[in-house]
Structure formats: structure tokens, C-alpha cells
């Protein structure tokens, strides 16, 4: 089991490390890209902060509580994007025949696709989310249970976004220019979960629980950590389900990926 998980991870890191070393980005451009990556998601939080100049709470949650939610989902998607974000380019890899060349190499295809042109600068988004998350965490009344829940939240949340990135990118096996559909679910999901779900109608929350389980990225674990009863009256045990949901999502994503690869038609002659 350890072997099964560890070997691909090692292969990923090896390829990623070579890309970092071989990075062809010019120095000035590297720093601008890094700072830009920090700012481009950072302005979203500044936006929330501005909203709180007008109101004192959003959906019954204070700025710090919203910041905790924002940081939780932000961290999850940033980590997922750092490691598997490149899969967005699957369509162009197919078009350019790069996927063919990856397929005749002895490293799992998914690892190669995700590690391709790995760029360390994408860590800027992780740092940005971490800053907000850290600031919000300073006001949490921590207990061992809550710390454990926070760790589980970040890991499970990342895995859920991993799965979404991969599963929706697989659409590109069938229609190459559908990359943006994935955005609606990944980045759309990220925006959605940046706010307390009490802002949205109950149907949305149910959909985010039973259909596209994004509520498990940060909402349910955060309710536990912030010590708040579920506003929609879901039982308390939903708050510990995130790891289970994450595993299920990962399983579905793996299945979709395998199906996609076996249906792959390659291009051209």
C-alpha cells in the first residue's frame, strides 16, 4: 500500500524537481508571476474585506469566520492546483501529440501530465491562502480535536479538488476545447465555498452535499472547528465525513481517468 502511493509520488517529485531546475522563465518574469499569483487570488479576499465595510456579518458569519472558510477552501484549491493544475492543458497536450509521447514512457500517465512543466511559482497561491487562514486561525479557540479536524480539512479538501480537476479535465478526451467547463466547477466551487453556505438557498447546500460534495471541502469541518451548530440542521457526524468523501471522489476521478485513457483516440494520421 505504501509502495503503491509512495512510488508515484517519488516519480512526481523527481520530474517536478527537474522542471524547477530547468525553469526557463526569466528572473524578472518569475517574480512578477509569483507576485501576480499572490495578488490575483488575494484581491478576492480584499473584496470580502470591502463587503464587510458595508455589513457586519455575511449569512450570520463574522469577517474572521468567513476568512477561515475562505482560507480553508483557498488552501485546498491552491494545493490541488500546485500539484495537478497542469491537467487543465490536457486538450492541448492531446492536440500537440504530447500525450502520445507520454504514453510510451514508463511513468504513470497521470503523474506525467500533472508534473509537466511544474512551476514553483504556483506556490504563491498556497502562501496567499495560508496568510488568510493563519490570520483567521488566530481567533479560533483551538483544542486537540479541532487541530486534528483542521489538518483533516486541508488534506481532504485538497483531495476533493484534486479529484475535480482530474475528473473534469477528462472531458477533454472527448471534446478538446471544453477546458472551461471544468472552471465552473473548480474555480466556481472555490468561490462558492469562500462564503458561508447560509448565503445560498438550501437547495444549493443540499446539492453541494449530495451531488457535488464541495461542502465537505471546508464548510462541515469549519462548523466543527468554529463550534457552530449546523444552520441547516444536518447531523453533527456530517462534520467528520470529509475524508470519506475525499476518498470516494478520488476513486471516481481515477475511474473517469481510466475510462478516458482507454477511449483516447490520439490525433492526426
Amino acid at each position, binding site marked *: 500500500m505504501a509502495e503503491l502511493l509512495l512510488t508515484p509520488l517519488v516519480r512526481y517529485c523527481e520530474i517536478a524537481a527537474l522542471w524547477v531546475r530547468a525553469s526557463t522563465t526569466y528572473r*524578472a518574469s518569475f517574480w*512578477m*508571476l509569483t507576485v501576480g*499569483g499572490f495578488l490575483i487570488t488575494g484581491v478576492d479576499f480584499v473584496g470580502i474585506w470591502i463587503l464587510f465595510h*458595508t*455589513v457586519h456579518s455575511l449569512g450570520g458569519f463574522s469577517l474572521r469566520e468567513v476568512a477561515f472558510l475562505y482560507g480553508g477552501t483557498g488552501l485546498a484549491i491552491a494545493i490541488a492546483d500546485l500539484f495537478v493544475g497542469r491537467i487543465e492543458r490536457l486538450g492541448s497536450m492531446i492536440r500537440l501529440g504530447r500525450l502520445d509521447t507520454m504514453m510510451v514512457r514508463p511513468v504513470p500517465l497521470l503523474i506525467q501530465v500533472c508534473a509537466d512543466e511544474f512551476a514553483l511559482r504556483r506556490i504563491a497561491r498556497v502562501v496567499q491562502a495560508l496568510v488568510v487562514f493563519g490570520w483567521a486561525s488566530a481567533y479560533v479557540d483551538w483544542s486537540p480535536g479541532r487541530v486534528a479536524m483542521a489538518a483533516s480539512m486541508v488534506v481532504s479538501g485538497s483531495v476533493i479538488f484534486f479529484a475535480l480537476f482530474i475528473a473534469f479535465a477528462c472531458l477533454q478526451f472527448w471534446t478538446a476545447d*471544453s*477546458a472551461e467547463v471544468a472552471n465552473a466547477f473548480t474555480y466556481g466551487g472555490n468561490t462558492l465555498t469562500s*462564503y458561508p453556505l447560509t448565503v445560498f438557498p438550501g437547495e444549493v447546500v443540499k446539492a453541494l452535499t449530495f451531488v457535488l460534495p464541495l461542502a465537505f471541502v471546508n464548510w462541515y469541518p469549519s462548523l466543527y472547528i468554529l463550534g457552530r451548530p449546523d444552520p441547516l440542521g444536518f447531523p453533527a457526524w456530517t462534520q467528520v465525513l470529509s475524508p470519506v468523501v475525499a476518498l470516494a471522489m478520488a476513486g471516481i476521478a481515477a475511474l473517469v481517468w481510466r475510462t478516458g485513457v482507454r477511449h483516447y483516440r490520439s490525433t492526426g494520421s
Partner: protein
Amino acid sequence: MPLHVSIATRAFRRYSTYTAATLAGIFTNCVFGVIVCFVYTAVWDQSPRAGGYDVQDALTYAWLGQAMIMTVAVWGGGSPDDLAERIRSGDVALDFYRPVGILGWYVAADLGRATFHLLTRGIAPTIVGALLFDLRWPSGPITWLAVAASIPLAVLVSFSLRFLVAASGFWILDSQGTKVLAASAAVFFSGLTVPLVLFPGWLQDVAVLLPWATFLQVPADIWLGQRSGLEVLAGLGLQLFWAVALLAGCALVLRTAERKVVVQGG
């Protein structure tokens, strides 16, 4: 002039070939539109006159924002991306020897692109938004006319900024970094993140005068009737001022770059 029309038409057609991408984009715009509407509803429920908007104004603003994202290419893109690529590959040197002005060429191409995006990713989400929420419409033909004048001006301002960003590649070779920085400024100061009317104090005083304010805030305020009479003219005037000033900047930058490329050979 017919040449520029045909450049614009070609750009329009180029984008119209990606049907699946367009539909996917419209879908994404709609998803974000709905999310923003629920957030704005929560805000305006508590503070019904925030920023001088009522809740209907706010919801309309949310969908206008989605409509303008691709039309003015807030995140970057459009014909300046082609320029950036030609600078990177060195092909731009050939452009300087063409008998047609570079700036006019790229303006025409971007207007063609913007027309396509307005007709698809501008109008479609607005219709969806109107079906889902009660939106406000321009109050009369004069307002419609002012909106119609405001949108191309917004595209021109945004084009010049994107062109300047791409042209930074003449000096730093790879303009991707500048592009990301410019995009984060554009997303925030255009009022896409939150309407500029909610910005606190001095930040708002400054933001409404910056070129990015002309992307969304100015056309939206004309649409919503937040600007009326002379204020409409003042808004269009601000757009015109930035369009002329920045296009002049583009021309100046091009002349400097030409000297660099042609004399030093790239």
C-alpha cells in the same frame, strides 16, 4: 479602412470557430453570475442602499460584470497576446516592415474579437441572468445609446492597457509576468471583485478615476441610470480621455520599440 474591417472580420471568425469553448465559457459565466447574486443579495438585505445601489442594481451589476469579463478581456488576452507571441519569437521585426500600421492592425483585430465576445459571452449570460433574477434595464433609447457608446470605449481602453503589457516584452522578453500583474490590477480596480461604489473612502475616490474604472463601473452606472444627464457625458468623457491617452502611449511605445528592433536587430 476596408482592410481594417476585414482584419476585424477575420478575428471575429477565428473566435467563432470554437463553439464548444464558447458554450463552456457562457456556462462558467452563468455559474459565477448566480454565485455573486446570492452574495450580493445577502449584503443588500442587510444594507439596502449600500453604495447607492438597491438590490436590483446590485444583481444587475453582477450580470453586467460577467458580460464584460470577456468583452473587455479583463483577465488579458485578445490580439495583444498575438503581439506578445510575435515579440517572443522575433517575428515582430517583420511587422515593422509592413505597409500597415501595427497599432491599427491590432486594434481592428481586438475589436473583431470583442464584438464576438459581446454577442456571445456578453449577451448570453445577461439573458440567463434576466431569466433567473429581476434585473434593471436601461431606462430609454438615450441610455441604450450611451451604453452602446460606452462599451467600445471600454474595449479600447482595455485594449491599450493589454497592448502596453504585451509591448513590455520588447524590453523584458517575456511579458507573462507583467500580464498576470496587470490582470490582478484589472480584476480588482475594474469593480469585478466588488463594485467600486462599495470601496471605502479614499480608495474609491482614486479607483473611480483609474482607467480600469472604465471597463465595468462606468458602463454599468450608465446602464443602471446611476449616471444621468451630464454625468453620463462625464463618464463617457473619462473613457474617451483614457482611450486617447493610452492609445497615444501605445503609439509612443511602438515608436521606441521600432527603433530598438530595427536598429539593433531585436
